[in-house]
């Protein structure tokens, strides 16, 4: 039996046109655990993450959070969810801080100092008042990570969070993941390389 205190997805099938992208993928994640999703390009890692986030409805199979289908408990599930797609999802004309304020502010009441603290943790506090369009790709990734932190969500869905990051940035993300999982959160991470983490890591390898 699956534990009710976990994020589970069972026998998820997704077709994209004629292509059967996800063929009965199942896994479950407990709090304080991390699911590392890997696999060659085009095997549906992002699709799986979109299914788990609720953006994409699978043709077959179910996704449950705390024993309830995520479509039935959409509002509760979204309140604890932080999703970072492989685009940083920042508006170039807004500053990093404004980007965070408008995104996080929809999820919970947040003060500017909390947002600055999140930017501090991802080491981009100096960019807080710069328009996002002048930031480098790595800096944008860090701002996007700060958004995930500021949401103070217990479920993180991260799509290739290590893209465009330098060695220090890679270490930083690993440290944040570690802290999140140690603090009782759970995370699904799509990444191509091995994750050097001390916490319990489940692995899900997708093949075509």
């Amino acid at each position, binding site marked *: 039996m699956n534990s009710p205190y976990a994020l589970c997805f069972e026998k998820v099938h997704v077709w994209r046109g004629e292509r059967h992208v996800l063929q009965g993928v199942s896994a479950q994640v407990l709090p304080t655990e991390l699911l590392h999703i890997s696999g060659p390009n085009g095997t549906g890692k992002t699709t799986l993450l979109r299914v788990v*986030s*609720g*953006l*994409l*409805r699978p043709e077959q199979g179910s996704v449950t959070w705390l024993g309830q289908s995520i479509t039935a408990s959409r*509002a509760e599930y*979204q*309140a604890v*969810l932080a*999703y970072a*797609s492989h*685009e*940083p*999802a*920042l*508006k170039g*004309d*807004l500053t990093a801080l*404004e980007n965070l304020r*408008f*995104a996080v*502010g*929809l*999820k*919970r*009441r947040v003060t500017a100092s909390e947002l600055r603290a999140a930017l501090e943790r991802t080491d981009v506090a100096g960019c807080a008042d710069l328009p996002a369009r002048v930031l480098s790709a790595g800096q944008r990734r860090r701002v996007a990570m700060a958004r995930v932190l500021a949401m103070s969500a217990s479920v993180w869905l991260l799509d290739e969070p290590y893209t465009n990051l330098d060695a220090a940035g890679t270490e930083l993300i690993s440290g944040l993941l570690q802290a999140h999982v140690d603090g009782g959160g759970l995370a699904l991470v799509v990444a191509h390389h091995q994750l050097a983490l001390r916490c319990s890591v489940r692995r899900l390898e997708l093949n075509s």
Partner: protein
Amino acid sequence: MKVGAWQAFSLVVQRELCLSFRRPDQLLQPLVFFLIVTTLFPLGLSLQLSQLRDIAPGVLWVAALLSSLLSLDALFKSDADDGTLEQLALSGQGLTLIVVAKTCAHWLATGLALVVVSPIVATALGIPTAAFASMMLSLALGTLTLSWLGAIGAGLTIGLRRGNVLLSLIVLPLATPLLIFGAAATERAISGTSTVGALYFLAALCVFTCTLAPFAATAALRITLE
């Protein structure tokens, strides 16, 4: 602490207006288009003032419809392209609320601005000042209805590369009643007869679209998000 619907609404409106004012070119383009098209007519036709007044309502409304179309394309597209739409869809606030907030902000930045500059155009077309109030009210109702119709079209076409052409093809036929009653209201205002009937029709269309369009646009967005 949870964020209430009203707060979320005002946050999205703030965000949209902030973005519009950071890109003044996008804000001004439809307005300048509206001004130029309407002032070209009197220059090109060299009519008597009475003849000009006869064509003024039609010119005013066609130009208003076309210039509103110019900005509709941007309603959801940039958010869809950079992944912001996904963030909004997962924000814990209903997508319908976000659609309503975005559409209202879009109208404030485009429709209302058009209503504000319309007296300049009206003067160029020889519309008497006594008709301004009815004309502006009819344009306000018409552009708001058009924003709602446009939200459906924009939601349906964000996934397409040449979506703006299709957007026009979807929205313009639906906007025909607006053109008919809007032009009728303006015409009656010019001739000094009662505009109440036409304005009621415009108001009814506005209420009809603003109650149904948010749901249709949300459904369209959900399809394109998948």
